[in-house]
């Protein structure tokens, strides 16, 4: 996906250069699906209060980017209608203009559009295929493919993990990933309904967590910071800088790597 991100920015520049007109958003086009993509994933700085009146060359903020992306996808207006007829994605809107750069950006748009569609469909097919599995037509149907709801019943492991792995929890009080696994995001020790441990092991695990927190080597209200830094929500972590470098830290960069101020 990172390669397609670079792809996006060059495509954006091309479309802006070619002066594509804005189009109405459609609820049925594949572009509608990408509105669910959090725009913060394209930022690498905390949100700033942007004016949309800033010049397009300085390309400020997430809203401008988002609208540009929609413009990019919807400017091939013929392709939106073709989608219903089920024609081939690659043929596209058929807006063949003479200039090579516009033709190129056309292809790029089509490629991008089909890429986004394909990824959206794949994200909905949650079945994990292992070699040797048997599948019948039923397994390709909606009920099996969409994935079962992640309820409490689903999350409970079938075996007692401490028994299976044969380790002593109390001897592993320094294992921060183990401690963080057995606490909720707010630092509370998980119930045995979630851990699936038998009472003896549940007590040992709880004692291990209390020991680490009591010693002060593990936080009590969230998971270990090294683990948070590596997690999926790392872009949301607050930016903490040493005192002398506050000015440098406030220089935020937008998606294209250009300074915003």
């Amino acid at each position: 996906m990172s390669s397609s991100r670079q792809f996006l920015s060059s495509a954006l520049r091309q479309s802006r250069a070619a002066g594509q007109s804005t189009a109405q958003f459609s609820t049925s086009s594949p572009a509608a699906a990408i509105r669910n993509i959090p725009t913060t994933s394209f930022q690498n700085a905390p949100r700033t209060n942007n004016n949309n009146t800033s010049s397009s060359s300085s390309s400020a903020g997430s809203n401008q980017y988002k609208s540009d992306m929609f413009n990019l996808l919807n400017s091939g207006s013929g392709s939106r209608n073709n989608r219903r007829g089920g024609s081939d994605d690659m043929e596209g809107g058929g807006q063949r203009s003479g200039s090579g750069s516009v033709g190129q950006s056309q292809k790029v748009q089509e490629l991008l559009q089909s890429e986004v569609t394909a990824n959206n469909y794949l994200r909905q097919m949650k079945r994990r295929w292992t070699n040797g599995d048997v599948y019948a037509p039923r397994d390709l149907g909606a009920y099996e493919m969409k994935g079962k709801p992640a309820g409490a019943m689903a999350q409970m492991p079938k075996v007692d993990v401490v028994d299976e792995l044969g380790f002593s929890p109390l001897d592993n009080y320094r294992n921060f990933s183990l401690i963080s696994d057995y606490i909720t995001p707010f630092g509370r020790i998980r119930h045995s309904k979630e851990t699936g441990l038998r009472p003896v092991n549940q007590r040992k695990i709880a004692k291990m967590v209390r020991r680490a927190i009591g010693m002060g080597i593990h936080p009590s209200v969230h998971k270990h910071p090294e683990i948070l830094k590596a997690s999926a929500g790392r872009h949301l972590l607050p930016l903490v800088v040493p005192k002398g470098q506050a000015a440098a830290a406030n220089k935020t960069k937008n998606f294209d790597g250009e300074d915003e101020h």
Partner: protein
Amino acid sequence: MASTRGMSPGAALLRTSRMFSLPAAIPSPPGNKFEIGNSRTVTEAYPTHQVITTFDSSRDRGDWGLKRPLPLKSTTGTTYPMVKVKQMDSIEQITDFASGTQHGLTLKKFQALNIPISTPSELNDPSRVLRPAQRSVFEADTDVTAFSPDQKIQEAERRWKFTGPWLAGMTPGEFKEYLTKTVRPKRAEFRKFIQKKLAAQKTEAANRELQEQAALRGDAVAAKQKPFKPESISDEEVTEYLRQLRNDNQVLYDLVGQFLDLAPLKPPQAAEARVQNSLMINLRATDSPYGARGPPITHPSAGISYLRTSAYLDNHPIYGPQKSHPPVEARVLKPRRGGLGNDAKVGVAGFVADGPLGSTHSNLKNATLMEKFDPNIEGGAKIWVNVDKATVDSTGRIQLTVNDAKATDVLIAKELIGEVSEPIFGSAPVRQQQKSFKRIAMTAERLRGRYMDSSSPSAPTMSGSSGYGLDKE
């Protein structure tokens, strides 16, 4: 099963026979123990209940030979009547049944592939160049389970069924439990086992010495030492021998493996071993095909196919014997994405397998079928493949090795089912003749001239068949 009290022995036999009863359900396939998530409705890797069928006329009346007729609405829709009975008579006084087509038809589809089951082999096994690529699981020397205790030890490299576990497949907790519950109580027995071994060794050594002495003296035959009894070996000798064994890992592991009937293990790679313990490097590699992944939990064929070889030629009605077996269509279940664990998966005959590996035409950059999901393809993306090998792994699942089919084979297969627009047979371009002879029309005079000129040997006679132009030589 009804109790046999108050029943004649014959009746008891009939009641428990296949003809009058369904076998009990087997445990469900072993999956990943640590996996979170309940998927009770997904098709299992192998069937756990017997699938039954019935005549069409009986099916239309709901008669499946069970305690009560089954409802027609759910049982009369399919082409093949197949049903699995979970409970003949439940507490709610119904027959708990489900459709059996998911496994019944998978079996039919697999058998239509006509491939034999082979013993597994590692891809990067150095000894593979010497061994044949496909070895049937029904070979006489490996498909045996009845061994005497001595034969068991000899044949350990070739057996598939072992009483003891495969240590590499046990989790640490399982291993600890195995040690405490099974191994520890057997210490006295192990000492007796060592006594026997030592007695045999002593006898062997004594015999050899006598033979040497006889050879020195010049006698033809040496006196045979009577065999030492295991009881004659003292406890101290056994303890001393066990102490010596601590320094000789190979012999120790062999003895323990024989005593506990452990499945053969592949020794750790030289790179890993160097880090942990230098004594590990010198362990002997095992020849057993199950050393790397563990022995199978079923018969190595899992009863899915009884073919022994695929060394036969398919005969096409027009094109004659074909070099390779006909290809089959495989469904692309998951397109390829870059990175670990993102290989393309295809489904052949109802089984999930890796897509064709290596540098085949479906793995090229411009092959979009395997690369990207295309929602516009009617019925889903499919590719033509040849299934090369089928093996049964240590969890009872069928592993297929799949390769891309050649374009010509695909064309021929499509023609046979009528999917090509133009027929291939007879469409090859006719080679142009280099010389074109001018045709001179046969006139009566010319014909007469041939008969007049009777001196030449090739002149036709009036009564012969040679003059009619029938034999073209």
